[in-house]
C-alpha cells in the first residue's frame, strides 16, 4: 500500500479492476465505450460534459483524463474553464437550495 491515496500511475491501470471481477468490469468498459461514442451528442461534446462532471465528483483521475481529452478534441482553455464553472454553479446551487430547507425548519420552530 502506498503512503498516499491517489497515484497518477493508477489511471493507466484502470483496466486491471477486471482481475478481481472480470464479467462486471467487461460490462462496465463496454458500456463506457458505448457512452462516449458519437451519437445524438458528439464524442467531443461528451468529453466536455465528462470534464465538468469530473470536477463535480472531484475525481483526480477523471480530471487528468478529461482535461487532456477535451483539449485534444479542440476545446479552448476558456471553454474548459466555463465547463468547470458550470459544475461549480450546480454544486454551489445544490448547497444553497438546501438553505430553503434550513429556512423552513427555522420558521417551523421559531416563535
Amino acid at each position: 500500500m502506498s503512503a498516499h491515496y491517489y497515484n497518477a500511475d493508477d489511471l493507466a491501470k484502470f483496466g486491471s479492476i477486471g482481475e478481481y471481477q472480470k464479467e462486471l468490469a467487461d460490462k462496465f468498459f463496454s458500456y463506457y465505450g458505448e457512452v462516449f461514442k458519437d451519437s445524438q451528442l458528439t464524442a467531443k461534446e461528451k468529453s466536455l460534459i465528462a470534464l465538468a462532471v469530473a470536477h463535480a465528483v472531484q475525481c483526480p483521475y477523471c480530471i487528468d483524463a478529461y482535461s487532456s481529452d477535451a483539449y485534444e478534441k479542440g476545446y479552448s482553455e476558456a471553454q474548459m474553464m466555463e465547463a468547470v464553472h458550470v459544475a461549480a454553479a450546480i454544486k454551489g446551487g445544490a448547497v444553497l437550495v438546501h438553505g430553503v430547507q434550513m429556512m423552513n425548519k427555522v420558521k417551523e420552530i421559531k416563535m
Partner: protein
Amino acid sequence: MKSLNVLQHHLANTQNQLAILEDEGAHKHASFKEKLAAIGAFPLRAAGIEIFQVNVGKMCNQVCKHCHVDAGPDRKEIMTRETMQLCLTILAKSDIKIVDLTGGAPELNPDFRWFVAEIKKLGKHIIVRCNLTIILANKKFHDLPEFFREHRIEVVSSLPSFTKDRTDRQRGDGVFDDSIKALKMLNAVGYGEEDSGLFLNLVYNPAGAFLPPSQQALEKEYKEELLKNFGIRFNHLFAITNMPISRYLDYLLTSGNYDKYMEKLISAFNPAAINNVMCRNTISVSWDGFLYDCDFNQMLDLLVDVPSSRHLRDFDLDLLSARAIVLKQHCYGCTAGAGSSCGGTVAD
C-alpha cells in the same frame, strides 16, 4: 525565432536526435523493429513507388514550433535546376504518377514555377504543400492561386486549428489571419469548390503533446466552422501525428513531455496501419538529390537502404521499389492510433 541549425542547437545534429530516440536504457521504450517482427511485418518493404516526394529546399517564411524540417528564413538549402532536371529525367522514364512538392515553402525556390511546368508536361499529378502565408508574403506570390489553378495542382495546406489562438501558438503570430486570407484567395479561383477538380486539402496536426483526434470528426467540424466564420470551403482534412524529431523533439524534451509522448505513440501502436504507411509507396528526395524512405527519415539523414541507389544520379526504380525501409523509434508516429501519413490517417 531561429532554426535549430542556425542556433547550433545540439538537436541540429541528427546523430544526437537518434541517440535520444534509440536510448532504450534511459526510456525502456519497446523497439519498433521488434514490434513489427512480433506481427510478422519485419523487414518492412516498399510495395512500389507511386509518389515521388521532392523537398525543393528548407527555406521558409515561417518558423513553426513543431517543424520536422527545422525550416525557416535562415535556411539556405535550395534545390538547383540541375537537380530538378535529374528528377524530371527519372519521372519521364517511369510510370510514377504523383509528384509531391514540399519544403520549407517550396514556392521560395526560384525555379519552382519552371519545375512545376516541366513536371506537368510529363502528365504527372502534382501536389504542392503550400503553407498559405507565402501567398501573402510578397506581391510576387499573390498570383500563386492562379498559377496553381493553371497547372491543376492539388494544394495541401497546414491549418492546425480553425481558431487563431492555437494556430498562432504553433505557427507564429499572424499566421492564422494570413492563412484565412490565402484560403479565401484560393476559393476565389475555384479551389475547394465541389466538381471544380481543384483540390484544396487542409492538414491538422496537434498543437501540443498529444495525438490527433478522429480525422472524420475534425473534418466535419473544420468544414462547419470555416464556412460559418469565414465562408471558406475545402475538400478534405488530413489529421497528421507529430513526429518526435527536430523542433518537435526539442519541444517534447524542454516541456518534459518526451517520455509520455513516446509511451502514447507506443501504446497506440496499430498493426492495421502498417500496410498503408507512406514509406511503402513513396520515395523522398532531398534538396541535394539524395533518396530517403520518407521526409522524416530525410530529416534524420537516414538514407535508403539501397547502397547502389542513394542519389538521383543512381536512381534504380526496380531496387528502390522493393527496398527494405529504414526503421527507427520515430516510426511509431506513423502507426499510432489511426496511423499517419502525408495524406492523413491510414487505418480505420
